[in-house]
Structure formats: C-alpha cells, structure tokens
C-alpha cells in the first residue's frame, strides 16, 4: 500500500506545527472559502431588505474562512493530532470504478470521442472488478464470479421486476437473439447466460485454487 504521510511515527516532529491535522483542516477550509468568494465575485449582494443572490454565500464563505484561520492558528498553539495514514490505492480504485460505471451505463461524449451506452451488462462487472482491486487482498477469480452472479441478479431485479429506467444492455445485443424476442426476454436470457457463466467459472477454477492453497500449506509445514 502506498503511503503518502506516515502518521504513526514513533518520534513526534518537533517543529513549529504542533497539530498537523488542524493545519491541514484549516488550509482546506480557507481554500474552500476562497473558492466560494471567487465564484460569487460577480454576483450582487443586495441589502438586508432585499437580499441578492450573493449575500448568504459570501457571508458563509467568510465564516468558513474565519474558522479555517482559527484552526490554522490553533495548529501552532496547541498540541493536537497527527495526520492519519493515507493510502492512495483505496480512493483511486473506488473512484475509478465509479467513473467506469458512470461512463459506460448510458454512453458518454467527450468532445469527439463518443462512448456507446453499454448498460448494466458492462457497467456492473466493470465497477465490481475495478473497485474490487481497491484492497491488496483482491483475487480476480472471486471478483469475476461475484460480477457474473451479481450483475444478472441486478438486471432482473431492477430492469425486469422493478421496471426502473436503467439501461440494461447495449441495443446491439438484441440483434444476437431471434427477432421476435421482446426486450424482457432478451434481458432474462442474458441474465441466465451470465449466471451460467458464473457457475462455470466457479466449478472449473475450483480445483486450481485448492491446489494452490495446498501447496502453500505444505511449504508452511516444511
């Protein structure tokens, strides 16, 4: 796991900063306040009698900024908490999974590059497999089985039973099935195929995994 700031150092820093957590928090608040003030710079503040759109945001931003300054001051005056350990792996993969889901569920256009809408069929497994790698203990086999079994479940639950307006599969998929099949029939057939694939992966890779566990076990004993 990659560590940005080591929080649990045995020896504490002896610098002017006595509470690094408050320092970081204070800076964050000041940055936020500055952003809000900059964004509302062109808006009219109005008077108390007839408030303009900028009145409340501006005063709130000033309040946030003052809190930030107070925290900043406290960081130099009072002993406080150190920053906790950070790891980038978790947030990067989790956000990656969310973005992958968002871009593939309905199709997305980045200027000239247009992603087709792939529906839950693709977005769901992508989210599970990318997101699953957020922990160092991730195992691809387990994630693939999870993706292949949970996605058809969600497709049937949300698309078929609950009729939510969520795209389930790419339109091109209907071409693969007999022309007189309805959307729902295609959905159910796809879900069944995926669930079947999950069982297949589970059964065919089962032996291999046990073997590897066995090997580890033996080497451990020797």
């Amino acid at each position: 796991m990659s560590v940005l700031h080591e929080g649990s150092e045995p020896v504490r820093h002896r610098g002017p900063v006595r509470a690094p957590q408050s320092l970081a928090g204070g800076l964050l608040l000041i940055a936020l306040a500055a952003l809000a003030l900059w964004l509302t710079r062109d808006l009219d503040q109005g008077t108390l009698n007839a408030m303009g759109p900028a009145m409340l945001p501006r005063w709130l931003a000033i309040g946030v900024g003052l809190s930030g300054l107070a925290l900043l001051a406290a960081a130099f005056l009072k002993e406080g908490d150190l920053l906790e350990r950070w790891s980038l792996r978790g947030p990067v993969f989790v956000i990656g999974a969310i973005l992958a889901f968002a871009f593939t569920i309905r199709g997305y256009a980045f200027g000239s590059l247009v992603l087709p809408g792939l529906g839950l069929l693709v977005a769901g497994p992508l989210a599970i497999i990318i997101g699953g790698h957020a922990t160092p203990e991730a195992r691809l086999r387990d994630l693939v089985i999870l993706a292949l079994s949970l996605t058809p479940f969600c497709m049937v639950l949300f698309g078929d039973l609950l009729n939510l307006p969520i795209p389930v599969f790419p339109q091109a998929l209907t071409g693969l099935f007999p022309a007189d099949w309805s959307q729902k029939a295609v959905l159910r057939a796809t879900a069944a195929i995926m669930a079947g694939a999950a069982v297949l992966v589970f059964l065919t890779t089962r032996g291999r995994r046990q073997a590897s566990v066995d090997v580890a076990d033996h080497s451990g004993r020797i």
Partner: protein
Amino acid sequence: MGDFFSNLSLGFGVALSLQNLGLAFLGCLVGTLVGVLPGVGPIATIAMLLPITFGLDPTGALIMLAGIYYGAQYGGSTTAILVNIPGEATSVVTALDGHQMARQGRAGVALGIAAIGSFFAGTVATLVIAALGAPLTGLALIFGPTEYFSLMVMGLVFAVVLARGSILKAIAMILVGVLLSTVGTDLETGEERMTFGLPFLADGIDFAVLAMGIFGIAEIMRNLDHTEHRDVVRQAIGRLLPNKDDFKQSYKPVLRGTLIGAILGILPGNGAVLGPFASYTLEKKLAKDPRRFGRGAIEGVAGPESANNAGAQTSFIPLLTLGIPPNAVMALMVGAMTIHGIIPGPQVMTKNPTLFWGMIASMWVGNLMLLIINLPMVGLWVRLLKVPYRLLFPAILMFCCIGIYSINSLPTDVMFIGLFGFVGYMLIKFGFEPAPMLLGFVLGKLMEENLRRALIISRGDMMTFIDRPISAGLLAVAAILLVIALLPSIRKGRDEVFTE
C-alpha cells in the same frame, strides 16, 4: 381523545391492508439485509434502496421506506452485537455490552432483548407521535418565517453541541454544509450561484448524491485503510428469548430508555443520537454494581436499544408537523417524499390523512415485523456477516452506483458520489465529522428562504429575530447551549460521554 382513536383506527385500516403489510414486511427485510452489512449505516441503506420504492403509490412507498429505515436501524444493532462494528453513531453504545454478551455465548439473549426493547419503545413512540401530531401541527400555524429561521438555528446549534470532537470543527462543518446548499439557481433572482457554468449544477447539489458520497463511498474508502479484523462471534448464538431474570433486570432500563429516547428524538438537530449515550450513562449511574458495564450487562443493551428506537421514531415528529428534518436520515425521507409528490409539513396531515395516519400505524406494524423477522433469521445474518469485506465492498459499490443512477438517470450523479466520497474521506482524515455538514446542507435552503422572507417582512431589520418572543426564546436556548458546551468543565464531561 376520541379523535386520537379514530385517527389511529383510520391509520391501522390503511396499514393492515394486505398490500401494505407485504410492503412493510419487504421493507423491513431488505432494510435489515443491507443494514446488517458492516460499514453500511441507515443513510447509505436508504439511499441505496430508495429506487425500489419508485413504482409504488405514495402511501405504499412511504410505508416501505419506513420499514427500510427501521430494518436498517435494527440491522446496525445486530452488527454491533455480533461483530463489534457499529454501523452508525447510535449503535456504538450497543456494541459495548452487546458484544461482550455475545462473547459469553449470550448473543441470542442480547439480540432478543434488543428486539423486544425496540418493539416496546416503538409502540410507545408510535402513540407519542399520534398524540403529539395534531397539537404540534397547530404550532406550525403560529410559526412565521422568523420563528422557522430561529428554530433551525437552534437545531444547528444542537448538532454542533452533539458532534464529537472539536466544536470549532463542527461549526465549520455546519457553515460548509449551508454554503453547499446555496449552490445552484437563486430562487428569487434566478441567477446561477457557484455552478461553474455546469448545467447539472443549476438545480443545486442533490441531497441523495451528497449523502451517498459522504456516508456510503467515503465509508468504503475509510474501511479499506484499516486492515480487516472482524471479530464475528464464534460462540453459539444461544437461546433467543431472555429468561425471567433477564426480564427482571431489563424492564426498568427499557422503560427509562424509551422515555429518554422519545424526548430527545423530538429535538431538532439530531437529538436522537444522544439517546443511547444518555440511557447508558444513566443505567450505569443507577446500577448497584457499575463495574458490570462493559462486561456484558444486559441493562447496557436493553436501555440504549430502546432509547435508540424511540428516538429514531419520534424524530419523525419535527418532519411531519413542522416540515423540518431533524437529522440526515429524515432529510433523505424528505427527498423520498418529494419524489412521490408529497411535501412534508403540517399540510400533509390535513390534506392527506390516510397517508399520514397510515404511515404512523405502519411504524408500529414495522416494529412488529422486525421482531418477527429478526429473531428466527439470526442465523442468516450471522452467515452474511462472515462474508469477507473484500467481496462485500465491490457489491456495495455497485449497488450505490445503481441506486444513485436510478434516482435521476444522470451519469453525472454517479460521478459526483465519487467526488463527494473523496471529499468525505479527506474530511474524516482531517478530523472533521461529516454529520453536521449534512444537516447544515439539509436546512440550508429552508433557512435562506425563511431568512429572506423574515427580513422582507421586517424591512431589513435584523431585530425582528429578537423582537418576536418565540423566536427570541429559541435563539436564547441556542445561545445558552453553545455557551454551556464551551464551558471547560462541561466540555470535559462531553468528551467523556463520547469516548466511553
């Protein structure tokens, strides 16, 4: 009194229809199923399950949502007892003695007394809501914008006082929350504020998106930082029904817990969160042998669990009568109601009595369901808890994505839960508590509206908030609370309550 009974019977007529019973059952079941997952609190549960209510009529949807809410609450307690991972702040206390009981092979009794205590508390709280509903709705009529604004200020001050850790940080979080609520088109002038010119921000930030990011996604990121060490009880669950001695020890704590929880739950500003802590402290003070607490004392489960459930339920009162959500879960309920075309507030009761009383009666039905579902299904929950987190969190992640996408069918909403998730993760790392921010966000829009209206009425005179007696009283309470919370001696006590 006659009104009270005719209203309740109207409510039960609605709630006991076959369809609504089924919905309450289903809501409780899926609510518990998701709520039991470690690291998933009621807010994330409701946000995730919100879409499954879309196809229903408003009454059915609200009944199901209430079921999901209670299910999620109870699921959190189950996790606290069996795994020592409290899903949310209110079940922290249950974990103390509940988990110890589980380690002594009394998990079944702990779960049983939690369910029975919750059921009793739920029954009382339902009656309290039914009794207070009508008179408090009358109160709403004498409240003008000035009073509403002051009431919300008081609620936010409560939230500051009740937040853990530094008061300064809690105040900053509230301000940030209100600031976030001002993003979007200004209602009076139609000018866009802080939208970066992005069209999907013109309507403001969606509450469900913010809540899901801060409480769902950030929680996943935070859990991933800690190497997993889940202490699922290996001992047998044991018998579920408490015996005579257990009942003898716990009936008084249940009564006291219910009373404390019901009163604190009504307070705006998430008073419900204080209920379990207050009940635990009280039981410990009253006990003949306080050393038993923390080592599996049944009173330490019975009292706080009852307080928790009573508070969870009476916190509907400010929402249903005044239209002010007292905490983040209720704010999510506002969102859910608005989707179904109901704007919470005093007018619901007069305009839509079947819905109002049906929902109240279904609260009791929901509590009964929990008692029926949970006890026989404990085995299933235990198995669910043994699923490793590395498989659970990708599933939670996908359900979050699907849930948030189906609310507005906007891919940008999905991206924003990622952004807010990261912001929430940073806030946690910097020692800020996200709950007050969410409350600030919830009340922000209402506050701005009422502030503007109040100032237009008074022609820009700020003194109106002090000149009007009710408003002055509310502000005085807020000021006194803040001063008390800042006093050094009380601060120490407050820290003790939260670290316990």
